[in-house]
């Protein structure tokens, strides 16, 4: 298949040496972040996934497409055959999600764990569809990639027990390229939609975002009133950083500077808008996709 090999030459082999630490870091840190994200809402678990939740489960169920079942649907289905309480079903799905993430972090039956984590995550989020936000979509995307990438091949219990390590570059090279293309497109479209709106160029968008009421925000937005030029600068910088992201990370000399800038932007989003988990997930994506693969020498963790 010469055509396939030619395409692979362009898209994969030209990457050169890539350190497999990116793929194991993605699995381990990704799973742990998703786990802590879910654990962080456990004090309010019944408020969102309870029988008497803030919005009744049947009302939340009425709002959605039928592409993915909710806990309410699963409960209805089970009740055709056995009497089981709604809360039991919700708790069970949550426990399965937690166990699958721990198992994925350890690299134990990685593919199966990733598939279960993805499905349970989707069911949990679909069940509270009016309360989901950016980080939930990012989690879905990452869990999907953890399912299709060969994440169990490196630094995992699967590899330890089955000795299936395959150091051939192709195995993770093509997946790395897919991951990189995805996030280049994501940042590009994010930057494009900001660039098309007038408010990102004059700072009004950032000003409005800073004032979006959030108890978790670390800095009082009123403090910015005396520094409007900083707000305008932040708005314009965000547009350019995102719009030119595909170029920034493709040019070898610019890559590190660009990734550091993007990470700083995400730290600012976390601190100013209170979206901590969203920021942490985005920082992880940047590190595993554009920084870790280019480590020259294997670290102690990559053995």
């Amino acid at each position: 298949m010469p055509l396939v090999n030619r395409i692979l030459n362009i898209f994969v082999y030209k990457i050169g040496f890539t350190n497999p630490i990116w793929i194991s870091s993605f699995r381990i840190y990704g799973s742990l972040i998703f786990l802590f994200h879910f654990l962080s809402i456990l004090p309010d678990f019944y408020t969102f996934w309870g029988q008497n939740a803030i919005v009744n489960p049947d009302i939340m169920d009425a709002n959605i497409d039928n592409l993915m079942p909710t806990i309410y649907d699963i409960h209805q289905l089970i009740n055709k055959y056995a009497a089981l309480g709604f809360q039991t079903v919700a708790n069970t799905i949550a426990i399965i999600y937690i166990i699958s993430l721990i198992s994925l972090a350890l690299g134990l039956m990685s593919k199966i764990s990733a598939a279960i984590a993805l499905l349970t995550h989707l069911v949990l989020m679909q069940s509270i569809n009016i309360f989901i936000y950016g980080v939930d979509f990012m989690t879905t995307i990452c869990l999907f990639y953890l399912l299709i990438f060969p994440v169990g091949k490196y630094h995992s219990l699967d590899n330890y027990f089955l000795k299936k390590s395959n150091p051939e570059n192709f195995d993770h090279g093509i997946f790395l390229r897919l991951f990189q293309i995805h996030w280049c497109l994501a940042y590009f479209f994010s930057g494009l939609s900001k660039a098309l709106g007038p408010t990102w160029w004059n700072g009004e968008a950032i000003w409005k975002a800073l004032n979006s009421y959030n108890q978790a925000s670390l800095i009082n937005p009123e403090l910015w009133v005396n520094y409007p030029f900083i707000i305008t600068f932040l708005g314009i910088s965000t547009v350019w950083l995102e719009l030119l992201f595909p170029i920034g990370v493709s040019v070898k000399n610019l890559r590190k500077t660009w990734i550091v800038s993007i990470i700083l932007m995400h730290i600012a989003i976390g601190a100013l808008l209170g979206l901590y988990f969203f920021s942490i997930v985005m920082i992880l994506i940047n590190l595993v996709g554009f920084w870790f693969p280019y480590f020259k020498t294997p670290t102690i963790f990559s053995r």
Partner: protein
Amino acid sequence: MKKLFLLLFLYLHVGILIINNSVMTRETYLDFFNKKSNYFDFLCGKIIRNSFFQIYGKYTGIETGYGFFGFNVRSTGFVINEYCGKTSNPEFNSLEAENRYGSLRSLYIDYLKYQFPENRIANQVDGMLEDYLDLVLKNVSAFAMRGKEVDCDSVLTGYYILELPKLVDLKNGAELNYELLPVKKFVYAIGK
């Protein structure tokens, strides 16, 4: 063979990603600037709302557009319950729950444009959406009242938008005053 399948998947996945985001960006652009869509836009909209695209997008997560805060940043909405002359809002035990509740608050912003008659006619389902959101609001009010002593016979629930001065006005010396603009109010009776 494995390589071929991988490549086909890669092209399909990236292709869907590009189509999805291009169409969504275009649709938001037309909506934001009140521009008319053409037949090509209609066709593209049909494609990304095709069941294959939707199912694939749902399970892979690529259904989401990346225009977070794109074009413009939404205004901040608030749900405020008044009961016996005091405000009574849902209480949470974690910051994550606050963030999730914030998503609900901003959900209402999307339907505000349908308050205008011309938009309402353009989309027949908006009446149902409005009823649905009212029902959600009622649930939130009931939740906020849970565990509290019943002294009055009704709760006044209001949906407000945070109005703040523009940055350009602040540069020109305007005072920083926050105002809550009432959008909708309901009175819910409570059975004692």
